[in-house]
Each structure stands twice: as structure tokens, then as C-alpha cells.
């Protein structure tokens, strides 16, 4: 891997502030009116459309596209938001190539799906720009619900409940709401402070109060919330990060990708962030791609994603993998990290074992090792639910156990999003969890179900 150079080559200002702003700019600019209408015209208005089935929130895709085609953009946005209040963010971050666009019948006829995600963004962006509201609250019910976590699942649940006339208080651990939309997604996917604008739109309905810097297990407890509210919805996400469990993991330059992205997203001038010359990302998911590409965009010279399994097992979609590769990121497969080598307390390289799957599908590490030099090593190997604060709940695989209606082992507590067992780590799935739970909570509060 190139010639050896001084370890710890980490510096800020590898790109100018202007370059950083440009590099982290919108990956897919908003369609123009004409582009939107021409693309909308490609939709065949399928009956019982496969795209609608593929959407975790069951958006009526053919209908909203037809509304765009007929210049009823507000109607299109309403169709989307009725099913998915975060339709704006999902239009930006959904892996559409494995959801709605994957099953578009245009793939069969001409190998190119209708660009559903971009059309969805066109509709929702226009609504947000207009400042119009499309939803109204039902009469006040006098019931109050605590939603813990102001990310996609929490805000989706809050919005649904507030529409029903309930009063919702959102307890958010961070200084501002939005969850991973605000802190955890690559900057180029959601420019112009979109996550906060979306939160403003949701809260604009009324009936939702957001209290920030309220962390479960620190200044609030599940017990207190159950006392103070008629129901509780937990959408606490995954606050913990997995560790590699290696000596020298605490060396300077070994960083947590999630924390770094959060810092990047909040940075006024991302070019001031420290960036390694040679970066190794350990992991194979969306976060691995997000941090690898952003490192490259901030001036890293050599960025490698190392993943211990093969391309098929990567959680990052094919589209994301390609995005990484077209940004000059190398993807090294079948590379299981075994040792972090450091010099003088600074990371110097990562040693990998070449790996493969045995006949039973179990990962096997060989004795054939190799090293990749690195100034920065990002850990992007998954996160964990901080379960200490919800110890009274039944867990499953380190996450909160829920039934199909997202009810936990406590009758007045529901949960959704990344913190529940079976959570898919997708914004759109979290939104659906919030919807499902809100429906159940509403039934519980009004029918005593």
C-alpha cells in the first residue's frame, strides 16, 4: 500500500471552505418543472402497483406521480405525506433501488425505473417551499403521550397522534431534534438544513412540544414518563457504538464514524474538520459509505472501505457502493480486521486477515494477513441500543421486543425505529413504526384496547 510515510497525517483545511461546500452539495439537484413532468409521464399508472407494495409506508406512488403530471403538485405532496410524514427526507435517503424503483415495471420494459425518489422530492420540496399546510388536528382529546426520541420514528408517531387530537411531548436527548436525519446522514443527501425544515413542518401541525436535552436514564426516566403521560412511545435509536475489541483501539486516529458524521453535519465550515491523508473505514453499511465518501470530499488522499464479508453481504446498497467507487473510494472485501498497529499512540495501520465463508455460511479467517496503512481508522461496525434506561422492558437480541403493533411488554409503552428488535435501520421503516404505533396508541387511548 504505497510508501511508508510519517504516521498521524491528520490535518484540517485539505480543501478550501468553498470546495467543501461545493463537494458536500446536493447529490441529486431538485428536478425542474419540465424534468418532473417528463419523468412523471414515464409512469404507467400500474394497477395494484408493485412500487406501492415495496414502499414500507405504502405510499400511493402511481397516484402522486399522476398528480405531478397533471400539475397538482400540492395534491402529490399530500398523497405522499399522508402515508409518510417524512416523505421529503425519504425521497433523499431511501435506498429506492432496493425498494420502489427496484420493482418498477419500467425496469422490465426498458431497464430504467421511473425515478420515484426524485419525483417524491419534487412534490414535497414544492410543498415545503410554498409554506402551505395540508394537515389539521382533530379536536383535543385531553390525552397526553410521551415520545422519547425526536428522530424519524418519534416524529412520525408524534405527528400521527397530534393529528388525532392528542397532546404529544417529544423528549429529545440532543440539543436539537431530527435524529439521524439531522446527525447521521451524509451531508450531500440533505442540504440546506432540510432535516430541521422537515421538523418545523411536522411540529407546525400543533399539539407537539419538543423538549431537548432530555436523556432517558439521565434526567428523565421511563417510570416518570408513564406517570406523567397516558402512553409512552420509545424511539431512542441506537446510542451506543460497537467496539472492535482490539488493543490499540484507543489510539489517536481511531474514530467512531457515527460521531464524526454528527460533528460534520453540525459544522459551520466542514473544511476545518481534521481529515486523515489515508483513511480506512471498517464496516459495510450505509454509514461506512457515508464516512468514506465524505472523507474523500473533504480532501483525504486514499480512502478504503474494508469489509470482512463479500459484496452481496454488504448492507450498503449497490447504488451506495457505486457512489463510493465513483468518488474514488476503494472497497476491499473479505478483509477481517485483526489488529490495529500504532506508533507513539497514533494509529499506523490496520492488519486484516483474508476471510471467506465456509459451507455453513460461517465467516472463517485465514492466516493470510495483510496491512493497510492509515492515519485515520473509522469504525462503522454497527450500533447498539442503550438498554440500561429501559431495563424493565423485555428485550430481544439487545433491542426492545415489540409485537406487530409495536407494543412493548408494558401495556402503555410502545417502541419503534432502530431501537426495536427487527428494526431495519431505515428512515422509512422508522416512519412506518411510528405510524403503526400511533394507530395502536390511539386505539388504546380511545377504545381502551
Amino acid at each position, binding site marked *: 500500500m504505497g510508501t511508508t510515510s510519517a504516521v498521524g497525517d491528520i490535518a484540517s483545511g485539505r480543501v478550501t471552505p468553498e470546495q467543501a461546500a461545493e463537494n458536500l452539495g446536493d447529490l441529486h439537484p431538485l428536478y425542474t418543472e*419540465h424534468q418532473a413532468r417528463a419523468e412523471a409521464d414515464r409512469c*404507467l399508472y400500474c*394497477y*395494484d402497483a*408493485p412500487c406501492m407494495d415495496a414502499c414500507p409506508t405504502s405510499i400511493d406512488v402511481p397516484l402522486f406521480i399522476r398528480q405531478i403530471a397533471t400539475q397538482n403538485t400540492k395534491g402529490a405532496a399530500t398523497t405522499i405525506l399522508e402515508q409518510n410524514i417524512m416523505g421529503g427526507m425519504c425521497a433523499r435517503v431511501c435506498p429506492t433501488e432496493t425498494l420502489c424503483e427496484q420493482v418498477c415495471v419500467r425496469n*422490465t420494459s426498458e431497464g430504467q425505473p421511473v425515478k420515484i425518489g426524485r419525483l417524491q422530492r419534487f412534490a414535497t420540496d414544492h410543498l415545503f417551499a410554498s409554506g402551505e399546510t395540508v394537515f389539521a388536528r382533530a379536536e383535543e382529546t385531553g390525552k397526553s403521550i410521551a415520545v422519547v426520541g425526536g428522530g424519524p420514528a418519534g416524529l412520525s408517531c408524534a405527528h400521527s397522534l397530534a393529528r388525532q387530537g392528542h397532546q404529544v411531548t417529544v423528549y429529545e436527548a440532543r440539543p436539537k431534534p431530527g435524529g439521524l436525519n439531522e446527525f447521521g446522514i451524509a451531508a450531500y443527501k440533505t442540504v440546506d438544513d432540510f432535516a430541521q425544515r422537515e421538523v418545523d413542518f411536522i411540529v407546525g401541525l400543533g399539539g407537539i412540544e419538543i423538549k431537548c436535552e432530555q436523556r432517558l436514564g439521565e434526567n428523565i426516566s421511563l417510570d416518570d414518563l408513564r406517570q406523567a403521560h397516558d402512553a409512552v412511545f420509545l424511539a431512542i435509536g441506537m446510542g451506543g457504538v460497537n467496539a472492535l475489541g482490539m488493543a490499540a483501539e484507543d489510539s489517536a486516529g481511531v474514530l467512531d464514524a457515527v460521531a464524526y458524521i454528527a460533528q460534520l453535519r453540525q459544522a459551520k465550515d466542514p473544511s476545518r474538520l481534521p481529515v486523515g491523508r489515508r483513511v480506512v473505514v471498517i464496516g459495510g453499511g450505509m454509514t461506512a459509505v457515508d464516512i468514506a465518501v465524505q472523507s474523500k470530499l473533504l480532501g483525504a488522499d486514499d480512502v478504503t472501505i474494508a469489509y470482512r464479508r463479500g459484496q452481496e453481504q454488504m448492507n450498503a446498497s449497490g447504488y451506495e457502493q457505486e457512489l463510493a467507487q465513483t468518488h474514488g473510494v476503494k472497497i476491499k472485501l473479505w478483509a477481517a480486521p485483526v489488529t490495529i498497529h500504532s506508533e507513539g499512540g497514533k494509529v499506523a495501520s490496520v492488519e486484516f486477515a483474508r476471510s471467506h465463508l465456509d459451507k455453513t455460511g460461517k465467516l472463517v479467517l485465514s492466516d493470510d494477513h495483510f496491512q493497510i496503512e492509515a492515519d485515520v481508522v473509522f469504525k462503522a461496525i454497527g450500533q447498539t441500543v442503550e438498554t440500561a434506561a429501559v431495563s424493565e422492558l423485555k428485550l430481544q437480541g439487545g433491542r426492545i421486543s415489540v409485537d406487530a403493533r409495536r407494543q412493548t411488554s408494558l401495556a402503555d409503552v410502545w417502541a419503534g425505529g432502530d431501537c426495536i428488535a427487527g428494526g431495519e435501520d431505515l428512515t422509512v421503516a422508522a416512519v412506518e413504526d411510528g405510524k403503526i404505533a400511533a394507530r395502536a396508541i390511539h386505539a388504546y387511548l380511545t377504545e381502551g384496547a
Partner: protein
Amino acid sequence: MADLRAEFLGIRSPNPFWLASAPPTDREVNVTRAFKAGWGGVVWKTLGLDPHVVNINGPRYGGIHSKDRTVAGFNNIELISDRPLQTNLDEIKAVKQAWPDRAVVVSLMVPCDEASWKGILAQVEATGADGVELNFGCPHGMSERGMGSAVGQVPEYIEMVTKWCKKHTRMPVIVKLTPNITDIRLPARAAYAGGADAVSLINTLNSITSVDLDAMAPEPTTDGKGSHGGYCGPAVKPIALNMVAEIARDAETRGRPISGIGGITEWKDAAEFMALGAANVQVCTAAMIYGFRIVEELIDGLNNWMDSKGYERIDQFVGAAVPNISEWQHLNLNYVVKAHIDQELCISCGRCHIACEDTSHQAITQTVNGVRRFQVKDEDCVGCNLCAVTCPVENCITMVQMTEGVDPRSGQPINPDYGNWTTHPNNPQATGVG
């Protein structure tokens, strides 16, 4: 290569593609460009008497577009030539001298008195033009002044004016018909009865292309108002084809020369008009959208098609489809088809299913054994072709004839014999049944 040379009323042109009387043929500069591009002939934009008419200074055209802005049709409220008569006559003469091998026919519209027609015919004859076309078609503006379609809607006027023209000129006379009537055969018969050498059709259709919902005014709008205009382009082609066919098979007019007009955009359109009896065709809208160069495709496409069919000259297929135009009552009721969906081509959009389910005969499945699959139920299929119309994939759904066995829908054996409504037992007026 087939021989595309055309002779229409003795007027020769290197191909059967003429530009219709309209803005593209308004002046020497346009017509020269058209001939350079390869057009076989032109019908010069309609001349009237001096003082020349004036056009509005607001928009003259209103369009109909698909979502990606393909033009399906447009209408116009432009009048006849708004230049001095002598200017046009001088230019016609110059063009005809410069392009002796091309057809130059002059469209005319003057008031309904014999002297006016006699006078202008003499002036046109002096230019050396090949013929005249009487504009009895324009539905806007001029019709309010008793000309254009105001004449074309009264067969007696058509016959009268045509007679005057035949009396006062040696040139061939073509009568251009308006489609804004109930039965196209009557004006056509009147034209031929007056001595017309040919009819040309269709002129434009009365229309309002759209309404500006902010201004609450029809498009195109001038100072907040709009008047109806003449609709043209691909959208009017089916109407034109039928009218040409009506004349081609009418006992009184069958076999008389027709110049086909109406939404011709590509070679196939032209071939269709000719198959229905048009000896040549006139084009306007397509040129106004894409420019004169479309004639290259028209010529080449027609040529290749003729080669593929073994036609050496255009007269070998002009009118070839006319014998197959039938009245409904003579269609064979024993001919049975069933829709067939090619599962290899099917992209599973489901439109055939929902179209049939909601609006027709519930003859296409949505699932088979619980799996999304669109399959025809022969026992319910009436062979109506709606599924094939709505299918977005070409040739995926076809109508397949049943030639033997029992039609599972009717329970009746397939009858190989021809049988129509005139002899059907359900027909109270049936003949020939016991």
C-alpha cells in the same frame, strides 16, 4: 428503389409530398427552402383580393402537448395571405420558373361572385402556376365574411363556384373541403358535380385548444379574448382518414382524384392516406413543428416500404385499402378472436386487467395461484382489443383468431362460414333466414 414520381391531374412532381396551403407556403423564401429540402410541390398560401387582409398581432396558435411536450395538435386563427396580391403573383411566377419540375398550385379565396373568381383566375394563370385549389375550408375569420368554410358548408355554393372556376380557367381545379360538416360526401359530390378535377381534405377543425383558467379565456388569447381556431396535426388524422375513405368509396365519387390532408407526420401516415384513395398528400403541421427536413424521412420511409412490398410506383397501392372498408352490417360475425398476452413480453403493469375488470368483461386475471399474473380468461373474453390498446408494450397483447373448436364464451362451435348482421336471427330486418 421505387419510383416516387407522382402525377396528379396532370401535374407532375418528383414525389407525392406537397406542402399544404398554410404559413409554410406563404412566400418565395419559404417555398424555395422547401423545394431545396426536397418537397414535391406546394399549394401556395391562399390569395385574396386587395386590399389584403390583416392578421391579429396577438398569438395565432394554440398547442396540445403530451407531458414531455410532444405536439399532438394545434390550432390557428391566422387568415389568408396578408400581403398584396401582386407581390404573391410575382413570387409565384419566379418560383415556378426556378423550379419547373415541382408542383406549384395556388390556393384562392375571393367573394362569392363570378367576376371576382374570373379576375383572379386570369392573374394566377399568368404566373405559370400548375393549378388552383379553392379554399372552401378555413373555419375562422374568413368564414365570418362569407368565404372559406361558409362556402364549404353549402354544397350548392361549392358547385356554383367550382363551375365558374372551370369556366374561366384552363388550369386544373382542386376543391379543398371543410370537415366542419355532418356528411363529407355531400360537399365532395357537389365539387365533382361542378366540374372539380379533385377534392383535397381535410381543412382544419373548429376548435378551442384549451382554456386559460387564470384569465378564464380560451387559448390563444388576445387581450383577454379568444376566438375558435382551426385544429390540425396528428390528433385530426383519424377524422381525416375516415373522410377520405368516405369519398373514396361513395358510389357517386368513387375513383375521383383526392389529395389527402390531415396530420400527416411520417411516411406511414402518408401511405395510409394513399391506401385509402389519396393520389397524393399535403403536409403542414409536421413541417411547422419540425421544419422542412422531415420530407427526407417521408421520401425515404415510403421508398423503403414500397420496396419491401414490391410496389414500383405509387399508383400500385393508391386506393388498395378501399375495397376493405365495409359497413358494420357486413362484418363477419362468425370471426372470433381472443386476446393473448405474451408472458415473455408482459411487464406486469396490470393495466389490461383493470381496464377489462372495470370497464369491459372481467376477462383478465390479476393473480394466478396467488402470484401476480395477467392472463386472459377465454370464457369471458369478447376479443374487444381494449387490453391491447391500453398495453404499454408493443405486440405484448395480440388478438388471435379461433379457427376451430367451441368458443368457450358463447358455447357455440366456431363457424367457418361468413355470416353477418343482415342475416342474423336477432335482426328484425334480417333477410334470407327461414
